[in-house]
């Protein structure tokens, strides 16, 4: 029996063949710490009486509340900067962007590598076939202090996407469909191994990151996209970084991209995935485009395409927060941002924005938000009864224009043509 991609990566690192169910202790390439848990991280290191073993392998990203929203946060972020300087760890400060996007851009998460992050969406690195996994402050502090971590080699679920997305459908829809099929705990403790075939290899790095990002919403330890297409152009992918054809999977799922329609995840769980049609017409108060799921340049292109020549509906707030300073620069340079701003949307500092309800667009009781983010749990973005509908950038933009949940196609159909 052959090895899965997760078994390949962990075997390579362990220096012996390891199989699902075994416990391994492995060296990690990078330990990523976000601002909101940095205080706990420092405290745990203190309890251990240790400092990072390899300071160059620890990166702290100030993104979860950036810029600081209150004095507590400002104090915590000041401590991060001072600590980083003292210890010699990288600190990515306010405005550089969301941790996962930054680690990919900085090439700190690489194919075949192992990166641990103090954020559950660290599965995102799997988009470039890097074993990325989220852990809490204690595990992260132990990894920084020792340079290693313990892992149970995960079983794998194989998800094969086939065909090409039609123009009305985004990678986000494919990712939501995957979560619907797997369910919120269908891949708990497991690796979601994503195969792209029959045209799906053309999915870009950004789209792959979106797929891997949402794998954690099915409970996954990691979500690994088998390298192909753009990944082979962007990276030196090691020859061993492929699953064996006879690898063992606990479950195999197929999703036909060409048959997919736009999706939306309705409150209050991510796996409550429905077709947009089923919630079409739901009134919207806020639209948020951004996050580690959908704040990249291609996402902003999708948004601009829908918004071009249109206006955000009266009474709707549209917040756009690029995932990183690089995305912001590129979207500025190519005119995307101007199109978005001319439509009446407003711009936030690259970072996590209101995704976890701390600042920059917190929801009032009873409000409805269409968001390109990854979680719609009760109270996630503010008031306990505010509702979050997770959707693609295209659907988010169309909903902002209409003032209710809709698709760009429905919007086009309703729009009088010049000859009408």
């Amino acid at each position, binding site marked *: 029996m052959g090895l899965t991609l997760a078994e390949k990566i962990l075997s390579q690192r362990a220096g012996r063949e390891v199989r699902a169910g075994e416990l391994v*202790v492995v060296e990690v390439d990078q330990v990523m710490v976000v601002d909101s848990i940095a205080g706990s991280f420092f405290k745990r290191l203190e309890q251990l009486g240790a400092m990072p073993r390899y300071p160059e392998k620890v990166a702290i990203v100030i993104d979860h509340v950036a810029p600081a929203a209150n004095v507590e946060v400002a104090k915590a972020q000041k401590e991060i900067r001072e600590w980083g300087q003292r210890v010699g760890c990288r600190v990515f400060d306010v405005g550089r962007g969301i941790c996962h996007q930054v680690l990919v851009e900085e090439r700190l998460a690489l194919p075949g590598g192992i990166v641990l992050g103090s954020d559950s969406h660290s599965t995102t690195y799997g988009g470039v076939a890097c074993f990325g996994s989220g852990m*809490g402050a204690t595990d992260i502090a132990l990894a920084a202090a020792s340079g290693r971590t313990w892992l149970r080699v995960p079983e794998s679920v194989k998800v094969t996407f086939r065909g090409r997305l039609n123009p009305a459908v985004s990678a986000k829809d494919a990712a939501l469909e995957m979560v619907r099929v797997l369910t*919120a*705990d269908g891949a708990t403790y497991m690796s979601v191994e994503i195969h792209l075939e029959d045209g799906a290899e053309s999915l870009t790095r950004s789209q792959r990151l979106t797929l891997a990002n949402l794998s954690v919403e099915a409970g996954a330890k990691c979500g690994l996209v088998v390298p192909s297409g753009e990944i082979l152009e962007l990276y030196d992918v090691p020859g061993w970084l492929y699953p064996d054809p006879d690898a063992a999977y606990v479950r195999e799922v197929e999703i036909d991209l060409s048959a997919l329609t736009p999706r939306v995840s309705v409150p209050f769980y991510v796996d409550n995935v429905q077709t947009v049609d089923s919630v079409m017409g739901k009134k919207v108060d806020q639209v948020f485009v951004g996050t580690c799921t959908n704040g990249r340049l291609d996402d902003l292109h999708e948004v601009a395409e829908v918004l071009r020549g249109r206006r955000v509906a009266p009474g709707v707030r549209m917040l756009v927060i690029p995932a990183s300073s690089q995305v912001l620069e590129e979207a500025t340079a190519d005119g995307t941002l101007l199109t978005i701003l001319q439509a009446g949307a407003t711009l936030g500092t690259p970072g996590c924005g209101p995704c976890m309800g701390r600042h920059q667009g917190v929801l009032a009781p009873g409000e409805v938000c269409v968001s390109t983010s990854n979680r719609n749990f009760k109270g*996630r973005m503010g008031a306990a009864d505010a509702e979050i509908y997770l959707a693609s950038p295209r659907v988010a933009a169309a909903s902002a224009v209409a003032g209710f949940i809709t698709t760009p196609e429905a919007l086009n159909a309703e729009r009088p043509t010049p000859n009408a």
Partner: protein
Amino acid sequence: MARIWKFGDSINTDDILPGKYAPFMVGEDKFHTYAFAHFRPEFAQGYKPGDVLVAGRNTGLGSSREYAPEALKRLGLRAIIAKSYARIFYRNLVNLGIMPFEAPEVVDALHDGDEVELEFERGVLRRGSETFRLTPPPGFLLEALKEGSILEYYRKYGRFPGEGRP
């Protein structure tokens, strides 16, 4: 005697501690007073040290925020009995020294407000004349829990449970 606080399936970390009440936002000294602030506002006031949290499937899904279970620990929680756990939450419980029992049939048998006695080292739970047996976590995790938490284990042995032999 301890009280059972029973919850359903899919209790997520935003339920346990909403992001806006992170220690990072409200200070180290009071974040735990917001445990279940949205979901069950009477919890933080009513919870007494040693009370047992009982929950359904996929307990603790969502964010990696260790301060969610840490808020419960701060209130005096030493054990959870659930049908199943989300991965990061399970690791966080072990790392904080909170015993994560997995026992679906025991969860079904227990009710909110039940008075119980829990000997958590032995995995024995009593309600009146009834006794329930709880299976502790797998060996290597138990090794860490026996030292108090994985931090104490690592500090003492300089290695992870299961990594080589002392």
